[in-house]
């Protein structure tokens, strides 16, 4: 068996001059579609919408009159959304490994970094949609039930803090997905680690002292409070985010770029 002779290069050579690369926008559209085209993904999105609405109703009946402000409505939505958005991020990454679709995905687009970038954009788009949804529902609830002065003290920074919180959650989910490449391990670790941390911190005082610097849950606490953050508190958010989002994301990305897909 010999290779094609030099006189007829067309015989064994692929002419790729007429083919353009897969644009990132197309990959993003595909990744958004992947979040909606399975029952698991669809129900997760439905759950995020339903729980956001449900907790508003609960708060409406449970909260004393004076508490029903726009900012309080937003604040209570942060928790359930903060639980579910990271799971969405995790699943978007890990389905490629758990369901082994990565073998197709990474053959259709062999540049894995590009695929991951598309997933990040798609997941962030859903995260931002969740923020918009929360704002819309909170506005409706406030309009219907708001206490006197319910619209006071709302600044751009309040929306920014809420958005930061949800976006960080989505990115942390993506990062944990990249590190573990396994839905169950990533989800369990994502929920168990903060609990384990607070147990250890309660037993070991030294850890409790540095907790705001190393535990993202603790350092993000002021974002819920509605008050202005001190410079130190912002730095604590930066270090917490570095440890729990940036570091795992980079490590996971390196792993995915090098890993064998099978």
């Amino acid at each position, binding site marked *: *068996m*010999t*290779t*094609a002779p030099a006189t007829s290069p067309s*015989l*064994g*050579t*692929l002419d*790729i001059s007429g*083919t*353009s*690369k*897969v644009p990132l926008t*197309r*990959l993003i*559209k*595909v990744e958004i*579609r*992947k979040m909606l*085209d*399975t*029952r*698991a993904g669809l129900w997760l999105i439905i759950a995020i919408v339903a729980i956001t609405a449900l907790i508003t109703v609960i708060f409406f009946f449970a909260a004393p009159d004076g508490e029903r402000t726009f900012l309080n409505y937003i604040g209570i939505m942060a928790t359930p959304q903060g639980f579910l958005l990271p799971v969405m991020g995790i699943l978007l990454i890990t*389905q490629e490994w758990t*369901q*082994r*679709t*990565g*073998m*197709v*995905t*990474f*053959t*259709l*687009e*062999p*540049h894995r970094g590009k695929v991951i970038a598309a997933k990040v954009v798609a997941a962030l788009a859903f995260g931002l949609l969740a923020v918009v949804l929360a704002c819309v529902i909170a506005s409706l609830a406030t309009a219907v039930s708001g206490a006197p002065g319910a619209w006071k003290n709302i600044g751009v920074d309040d929306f920014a803090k809420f958005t930061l919180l949800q976006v960080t959650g989505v990115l942390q989910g993506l990062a944990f997905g990249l590190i573990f490449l396994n839905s169950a391990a990533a989800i369990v670790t994502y929920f168990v680690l903060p609990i384990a941390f607070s147990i250890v911190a309660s037993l070991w005082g030294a850890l409790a002292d540095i907790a705001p610097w190393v535990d993202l849950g603790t350092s993000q606490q002021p974002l819920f409070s509605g008050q202005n953050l001190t410079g130190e508190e912002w730095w604590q958010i930066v270090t917490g985010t570095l440890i729990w989002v940036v570091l795992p994301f980079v490590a996971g990305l390196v792993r995915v770029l*090098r890993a*064998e*897909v*099978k």
Partner: protein
Amino acid sequence: MISLENVTKRYGQFTAVDDVSFVAQAGKVTGFLGPNGAGKSTSMRIMVGLTPQDAGRTLIGGHRFADIPNPSRHVGVLLDASAQHAGRTGREVLRLSAETMGIGRERVEEMLTLVGLSGPEAKRRVRNYSLGMRQRLGIANALLGDPSVLILDEPVNGLDPAGIHWMRGLLRSFAGRGGTVLLSSHLLHEVEMIADEMVLIGRGKIVAQGTKAELLHTAGTYVKPEDPAALQQALLAANITATPSGDGGFRSESEPIDVGRAAAAAGVVLAELKRAEGAGLEEMFLQLTSDDARDAITPEGVQV
């Protein structure tokens, strides 16, 4: 055309693919044959960049796979029919691929019809598909981008005889139009039915390659000596080429009488000396598939 040049992949101490070189030519169906665990799937994953190799290179139509823009428009790949999201419908699996490739939905319906999954089957979730149906879906996915090269790992696995017949017709006409087909299998008779050329792999090494006719009609001699090393020396002295057959014997292109003379001249005792009778490929394949005999296989014809 697909070419592998000295490709090697190691997992710790274990060498899964060991200095593998071969070419799958355009216009032909090349069968990649070997027992389970021989390195077929690893080699195929290396071709499309899913597994990084430790040495060597693979080119498809003269390009590295990663350098081909929108590669599925040129190279159709089916590596594992089961590697599909169980919760998606057959049609949705193809639509996702089509959207990535940037081709229309009519093509999805065309492919579903081609592989016999149109109608109600297309709406069922892959979870409820038989292995044969998953293979058909995988073939549809590979053909979706209208490629000129096909890389298929065990595509016939799970198909019924009618399905195998259908696959054969499909791949033959694909190659007939000038396409390149590389398909792997662990079953000799499957490959015999479909392929023009064959590449045999065992324990990560290429042990034989050539056209089906060449491999199936290796006339010549089978000889089994009392002392293999002594016979190697004797054949070397007589300028006779021989290949170890894996059971302590040798296979040679030369006539039995010449091998017998060489052995007699050196005083080597022979336990068996017979005409090979064209069963070379099957015997070699059986040797490859029996675990305890695999150690004895060497890739090169021993020049003795």
